[in-house]
């Protein structure tokens, strides 16, 4: 039996959701709502951090200084997104440290797309165009998510992601105006990333375990299949503008439904990748673990120094 104050709190929570208003960190919330948010925000934050790797691998090989600057700034933005999102998670009482541990122990997920390798510079463009494009479809509705800090972080993230998406498209468009070899590189890259991009919206609604509850709580605003359809419909004209062929011969406009019919990605592959058998799962987690462990002595030094500074505030002045 609930106590009267608890009942009042729950009613207030439900009323906030019904008004499409925001839940804030100090508000009462059901434990499962909190846990679902932590899981989702952490996964999102981890995706930003792991997502630095496949693109970051090309910073040192960017073929023009302008592209090098754009890519470096983008990878930097991803670190920034990770920061906002870990902060949002911290408002729910979980520290960045705890979340990082879970990531490198393989106990929390990140977007499965980053378990695919980047094999050419065109992949930098394709990730911007298709992967960031898919991310935006997923994320724009999250700007209206019911948990305040998460929604506000998403507004900032989405703005930058749109910018990245346009930059990715622009890189591909430029390459398509280049040499035959460059055009072939773009097409090969799109061929590789199309199916994994479709997987980014998660399994078909019929198989999605979390969707219903998340929608009821206002954490999620659209189903996986709705978002996937939106992405396909948005992408087809862009592909045409680029002059690339999406690798699905059955992709056609369906007048009746007012959207495209398209082939589903290989969901068995998706399950394999999610459960750890993707081409890069081990590599990505090992990289993050190594970077984290290599940096431990620096973080320890910073903490020790900060403690010392608090104890001897006069020193601080002498220093600055």
């Amino acid at each position, binding site marked *: 039996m609930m106590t009267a104050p608890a009942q009042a709190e729950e009613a207030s929570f439900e009323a906030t959701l019904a008004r499409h208003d925001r839940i804030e960190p100090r508000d009462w919330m059901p434990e499962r709502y909190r846990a679902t948010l932590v899981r989702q925000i952490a996964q999102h934050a981890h995706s930003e*951090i792991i997502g630095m790797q496949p693109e970051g691998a090309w910073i040192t090989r960017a073929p023009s*200084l302008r592209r090098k600057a754009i890519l470096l700034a983008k990878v930097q933005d991803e670190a920034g997104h990770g920061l906002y999102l870990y902060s949002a998670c911290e408002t729910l009482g979980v520290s960045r440290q705890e979340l990082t541990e879970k990531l490198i122990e393989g106990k929390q997920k990140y977007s499965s797309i980053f378990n695919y390798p980047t094999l050419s510079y065109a992949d930098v463009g394709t990730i911007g165009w298709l992967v960031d494009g898919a991310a935006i479809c997923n994320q724009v509705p999250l700007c209206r998510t019911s948990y305040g800090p998460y929604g506000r972080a998403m507004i900032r993230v989405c703005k930058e992601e749109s910018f990245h998406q346009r930059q990715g498209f622009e890189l591909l468009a430029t*390459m398509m105006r*280049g040499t035959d070899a460059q055009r072939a590189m773009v097409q090969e890259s799109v061929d590789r990333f199309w199916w994994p991009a479709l997987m980014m919206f998660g399994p078909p609604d019929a198989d999605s375990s979390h969707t219903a509850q998340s929608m009821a709580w206002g954490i999620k605003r659209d189903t996986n299949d709705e978002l996937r359809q939106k992405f396909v419909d948005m992408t087809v004209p862009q592909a045409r503008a680029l002059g690339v062929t999406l690798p699905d011969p059955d992709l056609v406009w369906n007048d009746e439904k007012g959207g495209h019919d398209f082939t589903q990605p290989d969901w068995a592959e998706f399950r394999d990748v999610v459960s750890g058998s993707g081409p890069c799962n081990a590599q990505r987690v090992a990289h993050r673990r190594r970077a984290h462990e290599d940096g431990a*002595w*620096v973080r320890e030094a910073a903490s020790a120094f900060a403690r010392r500074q608090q104890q001897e505030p006069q020193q601080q002045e002498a220093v600055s």
Partner: protein
Amino acid sequence: GAALAAYCLMLGDDALVHSHRLSQWASNAPDLEEDIALANIALDLLGQARLLLARAAAADPSVVPALPAGSPVPPEDALAFFRDDADFRNVRLVEGENGDFAVTTARLLLFSTHRLALLKRLRDSVDPVLAAIAAKGVKEVAYHRDHAARWCLTLARGTEESRRRMRAGLDVVWPLHHELFRTHPVEATAAEQGFGVDPAGLAADVDVLLEQVLSVGGLDRPTVPPTGPLGRGAGRDGRHTEALGRMLAEMQVVARAHPTGRW
């Protein structure tokens, strides 16, 4: 034109190569804040490099490597991606492998302390483009220097391990420090003609600032011997360490595979 171009390549290559090394920290830094900070510094230096290489190309188009007819590669990229290591004019200090975070911190401290002093004077260059690049750069590099000095101090006064590593990091980069203050004939000409700065004149000021950081950190000045030149030349003459060739093999691989590519 030729002396100005040669001078711009020196400062531009310093920025380009150091930026490249710092960019290798992306997704490898001790924490996210530092990933962001090092990327920021790398971006600032990359921006300086682009302006300086473009100025070099404008001052003397003959410094730009020839590419196949009709190649759309702009001069800044022809310079960055189609010169061999012997044509780079950066000091050897900036081209070394990153090492651990202490080595990177030590290198950034030495480089940015020097460069800040240099850019401050370069604001008075008779070349208005260089003067403008310097004016913008001063604000950026002041931040780089503060960042490096703060970390140097943090590591020196953090834990026993961090102190040991900070000392070792200084020992790694210190031998290459003096090359920054060796006046190359091009720099002498640049100073004479008023468009550049004689680096020898910066040594005393830079030394005072470094001494200050070392002493607040309780660090002794390293006693390791300086790294000598290679025959009669060093980085500014295109005589580099083995590290630069390896770095360029990676940096230039895509651009060189597509000499008529558009990016």
